[in-house]
Structure formats: C-alpha cells, structure tokens
C-alpha cells in the first residue's frame, strides 16, 4: 500500500509533472489573492477570467479586432522575411557591400526603435499600416543578420571542393551557399517573429482603432480586469502558437546543422 504522499513524491520526480505543479500552484495563489486580498477592480481570479472568456469574444468588435491583429502580424512577418532575405543576400554575397553596409545595419538594429513609435503613427496613420510597418521594422533586422551570417560562414573547404569539381559560380550559389544558409535563415525567422510580435503589439497598445489595442485600452479605462485578463491571455496564446510554429520550422529545416 503506497501512501498518497509517496505517490505524489514519485510523480513529482518527473520534471514536467513538477512544472505543471508549479503552474497550478501559481494559479491557486492568484485565485486566492484575487478573491480575498486584492480589490476586484484591479485583479480578477483565474476562475472568473476563464468563465468570462466567452463574454470577451461576444464583446462587439473583439473577434474582428483579433482577426485584424493576426492579419497585421502575418503581413508584417511575410514582409520582414522577404525584405530581410533580399537585403541579406545582397549584402552577404558581395564582400564589399557587406563591409560597407553591415556596420550601418548593426547600428540601426541596436537603436531603441520604440522611441520612434510616435513617428511611425504620424507617417502611417493610426490604422493597420503603421502596425505592420513597425512590425517589419523590428522583424527584418535579425533576418538580415542571420542570412548574412549563413552566407558568410560556409566552410571554405566546401567551396574549394565544389570548385575542384568544376562548379560554376551559379552552381556554387545554388547548390552550396543557398542550402548552407537555410538553417540560419530559419533561425533568423524565429527571431524575426519575436520582433514582429513585439513591433505590432507595441504599436497596437499605443494607439488602435480597429485592432486589439483598442480593446485593451477600453477594458483598462473601464477597470474591467476580467475581460482584460481574458484578452491578454488570448493574445499571449496567439504569440505562443506563432512562436512555436516558427521554432518547429527551424528545427525541421535545420536538422543537419551541427552548430
């Protein structure tokens, strides 16, 4: 007869069970704090948030806003990838271009772009365009950097070997440099997705008429923590799913990469 405590202790030996246990504990703590300690104007317990999720979706305009935000993310991501790939290849394949422009690109990559968020809104308006633009502005830098690295880091022996077998310049590009760059490219896309999420969501939170930012502001101003938490949870879930998709793609396409 194994006692319950022993059984629990045995189960906890597996890390993933312990992790779930930690999360459950946190939720319990949240539940207790929200019910008894904290003013319900500021925080809602998870049970209530969960029950009211349907309400959030029923709020007029929320589903549409979620769709618009998702669309902004998708467009920003695709644009980042295309622009990043083009610039990355242009700069990475030509050594002189790389030496000249990489320092400038890295400098821009390092600046706190959030300072010019108001500028983006002024230039692109308060609609989806500014969100997409700001997302692209965050997303394409890591792609450029990783594509350049992927092109640069080809082991010289591979190029020598191809040359010794009679490969033309175009063949080397297509059969050696390009396949070599793919894992880096996907790693860059993973970082790019993080950037796009940051950019689009920042812009949404700043000012939004049709996107999700409108409702976060609304729920905040109305002191409706239940719906706000619900909405934020949905957005967080969206972010997690998008990140996971890109991460899986990276693992799949980077299979041979031994870095």
């Amino acid at each position: 007869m194994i006692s319950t405590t022993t059984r629990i202790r045995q189960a906890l030996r597996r890390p993933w069970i312990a992790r779930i246990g930690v999360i459950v504990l946190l939720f319990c703590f949240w539940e207790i704090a929200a019910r008894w300690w904290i003013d319900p104007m500021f925080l809602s317990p998870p049970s209530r948030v969960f029950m009211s999720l349907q309400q959030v979706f029923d709020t007029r305009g929320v589903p549409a806003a979620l769709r618009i935000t998702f669309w902004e993310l998708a467009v920003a991501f695709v644009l980042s990838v295309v622009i990043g790939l083009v610039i990355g290849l242009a700069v990475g394949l030509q050594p002189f271009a790389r030496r000249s422009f990489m320092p400038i690109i890295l400098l821009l990559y390092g600046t706190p772009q959030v300072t010019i968020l108001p500028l983006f809104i002024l230039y692109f308006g308060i609609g989806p365009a500014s969100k997409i633009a700001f997302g692209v502005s965050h997303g394409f830098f890591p792609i450029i950097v990783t594509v350049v690295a992927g092109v640069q880091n080809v082991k010289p022996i591979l190029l020598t070997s191809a040359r010794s077998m009679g490969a033309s310049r175009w063949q080397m590009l297509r059969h050696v440099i390009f396949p070599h760059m793919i894992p880096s490219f996907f790693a860059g896309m993973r970082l790019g997705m993080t950037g796009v999420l940051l950019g689009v969501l920042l812009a949404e939170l700043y000012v939004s008429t049709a996107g999700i930012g409108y409702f976060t502001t609304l729920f905040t101003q109305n002191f409706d923590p239940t719906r706000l938490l619900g909405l934020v949870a949905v957005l967080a879930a969206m972010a997690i799913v998008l990140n996971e998709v890109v991460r899986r793609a990276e693992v799949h396409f980077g299979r041979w990469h031994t870095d």
Partner: protein
Amino acid sequence: MTGEVAIRVKDVSHQFGEEGDARHVVALRHTSLDIARGELLCLIGPSGCGKSTLLNVIGGLMTPTTGTVEVSGKPVRGPMPHDIAFVFQENALFPWNTVIENVNLGMTFQGVPRAEREARAKRSLEAVGLKDFAQHYPAQLSGGMRQRAALARALSLETGILLMDEPFGALDEQTRMILGEDLSVLLSRTDKTIVFVTHSLGEATFLADRVAVFSARPGTIKEIIKVDEPHPRKPDFVTSQKFTTIRNELYRLLHDEIRKTMAETGMGVAHSASEDARERADGSAL
C-alpha cells in the same frame, strides 16, 4: 603502370606574401617531379613543408609563384574537373545532402549528363562499400564512412588522376589500416594515378609505389624511395622485412627534418647536443 607521364611538375616554387612581409612564407622551393600513369605516389614530410601546397598546385587550386605543371600533356591553369578529382582531409561532404545526393552533386558540377549519373553513383558507392548507406546523411556516418563517401564522390567523376590530401588523417589507426587496404585493392582494379599526402610513415610504405620525402620548410623533395610490391597489398606486407627496411629508411630521412621543423616552431623539448648524439647512436630510444 605504364611508362607514360601523367603529371609533370617543372621547377615549381611557391611563396605566400611578399618579401619583407611579416607573413612571408616560402612554402615550396624548386620542386620537380614526374608522376607515371597508374602509380600511387606518396608525399611525406614534416608540417609546413609544402606537400599540401604542391598538391593544390598540381590540382589547379593554386597558381605557383614560379614553375609549371602539366597534366596529360596539358598545362594546368585552374581546376580540371575532368582530369583531376580531390579527396580532402577535412570533411568536404555537403552536410545537408545524403551520401548519394553528394555523389550526384559532384557529377552535376562536372557536367555528367543526368542519364549516366545513376549508374556511375551506384558503381562508385559499391566500390567503396557504401551501397547500403546511400540515403544516410554525413552526420549519421562514422569518420571512416564519411571519407569513403568522399572517395566515392571523387571516383564517380571518373578522372584519370586522384589527389588525396591526408584523407585518413582524422581517423583512428584501425580505420586507417582498413581504408588503406581497401584503397590498395581499388588501385589494383583501375589504372588511376594517385598522389597521396600523408604524415604516416607506415601508411606511405603500405600504399605507395614511390614515396617522395620532403625537407623542412622551405620544402623541396629530398629523396624518392621506391616500394617494389604489387597491388593489392596484403595485410601481412606490413610485417615483412621489406616493409620494415623501407619504413626505417623513411624514418632516417625524415627525422632530422621533423626536428628542424619543431625547433623552428618552438615545439619539442630542448635537447643538449650530447643527448642528441647519444640518442642517434643508440637508435632505440626514438
């Protein structure tokens, strides 16, 4: 082995950097050599003596500062993929391709028509014993098998000449022995001309028809030793008296050059002259 000359090296010298440069290095100094068709010639010598440089010059990957190389009567001006195939020490297989994709890609580069590729790939993989591993990725193979795959790729190009730069250098001794035996068998079946760079005295003695011994940097050919033993060489050749004599001769020729190189690069424990003399007379300590 016919008497025909496959590769003619004429007074080749090569230096890196300019005179007066901090990084100026004379890698190769006035080297001349005739390599007969169908023979396996080993280049052996201390580190930095220019043997890899000579190989790259022969293969057209490098243009020598002075001197010329002729392959089958034609002057070498760049890579000659239809005449010369390389096997490098470093793993030069494309890691994102399977073994057979690697072999096919080599033929694509050379310009083999698509219809022929499958047959050639099959033949060369069978020749190196990797028929069952065609769909594997390099990362899934051991070091020895990877070099076999690299060899298969080179063989599929069906060139007359094979240049091998320490191809077994990164492998453990047991794998080296097996691959060496297999290479000898391969050589007996084709009339390829092979130039083989190695550090290993035993490997050179076992594989070569002739061994060119290099001096320390700036390198030139000190002496050429003949190994008169038909291919395929049996494993028991290694324990024969002939083998030991040749190997000892190589050792004698090389030892001073190796010490010279180590002294130059600051490696090796400092010896006094009397210790050196004692060791030389004794012969056994080393």
